[in-house]
């Protein structure tokens, strides 16, 4: 009888594929790949896609990005790197950059407002300083951004940053 059970084993049987935590192992498996993809700062639209993916993950399992300080230590430094490189080269933000920053601000807001896991003050300070760099740049060249990019998009981003940093 036991022998027969072994022979009839199938990976498609419910008891053999009933993974109790389906999203968590997938998130573990793909997180490093996503952050590696985000290191290529020239592919701005792909970084935005990665951020959108992390935002969906965060909405479903907010603990994931808090655990092991994943957002603080793996995701946020990549954003800082992008913003610093723009500032250093005195590059203006493109439309893709503004979209990326909007997505990043939304993710940061969802992250810091998760009540179960309060964010440490040192990260809040760092985040506020980085976001104020963006605000300064947008205000310094406000006319250009409103005319060349989109007044509405820029205004919305400034409002989001203000809400997050206040």
């Amino acid at each position, binding site marked *: 009888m036991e022998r027969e059970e072994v022979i009839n084993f199938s*990976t*498609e*049987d*419910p008891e053999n*594929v*009933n*993974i*109790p*935590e*389906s*999203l*968590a192992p*997938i*998130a573990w*498996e*793909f997180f490093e*790949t*996503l952050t*590696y*993809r985000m290191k290529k700062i020239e*592919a701005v*639209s*792909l970084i935005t*896609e*990665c951020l*959108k*993916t992390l935002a*969906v*993950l965060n909405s*479903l*399992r907010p603990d994931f990005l808090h655990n092991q300080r994943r957002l603080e230590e793996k995701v946020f430094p990549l954003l800082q790197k992008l913003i610093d490189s723009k500032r250093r080269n005195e590059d203006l933000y493109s439309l893709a950059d503004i979209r990326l920053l909007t997505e990043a601000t939304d993710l940061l807001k969802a992250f810091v407002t998760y009540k179960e896991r309060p964010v440490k003050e040192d990260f809040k300070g760092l985040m506020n300083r980085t976001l104020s760099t963006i605000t300064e740049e947008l205000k310094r060249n406000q006319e250009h951004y409103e005319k060349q990019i989109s007044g509405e998009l820029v205004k919305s981003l400034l409002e989001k940053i203000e809400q997050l940093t206040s």
Partner: protein
Amino acid sequence: MENFSSSGHLKKVTIHSALISFLVDINEAKTVAELISVHSSNIIQNITQKIGHLSLIRNKNSPFRMLVAFLEMALPQDFVRFVPSFVRSLNKFTDQYYLEDTTGSIEVALKLYLRTSEFLRQTIEADEKLVLDTLKTSNLLRQMLMRIKPFILSSDKKMSFYSIQILRSTFPVLASTLICDIIAANVIF
């Protein structure tokens, strides 16, 4: 395979029999949704056959366009029951394309994975039970994700873009499975 001629086109006899069956159904005054429902198996089979013969097909995008058109008209249950076999076929062909490296084939496969995972995400929002009942006995999404993972880091931006989107659209489905399992665990223990 047997429905294709040596040039890769569907044999006339297959088209004729499908057409006759279709005309009989029209005669019986079926609605479009009913017609699609009755013929869904044939349509999916036709799409799968085209994927298997991509190298012979001039318009490589045609299986994707067929799937999009089908999903626009079909009811969710007309596709969801075929998802496991459809994805298994797609996996099989994708594995071949890895080896053969036929230009454009992997991209078509990624687009089909994306449309399928988007379909599951949209359907699960409307009818969670319908999707979970179909998928709970299968490690389907993991098998799909295992294949798209290398393309996230692809230098081809389009491939990377599709792969990230596929991953994102599977999250709600994976999360729903978890919710279901937690409920089941609480009931049992």
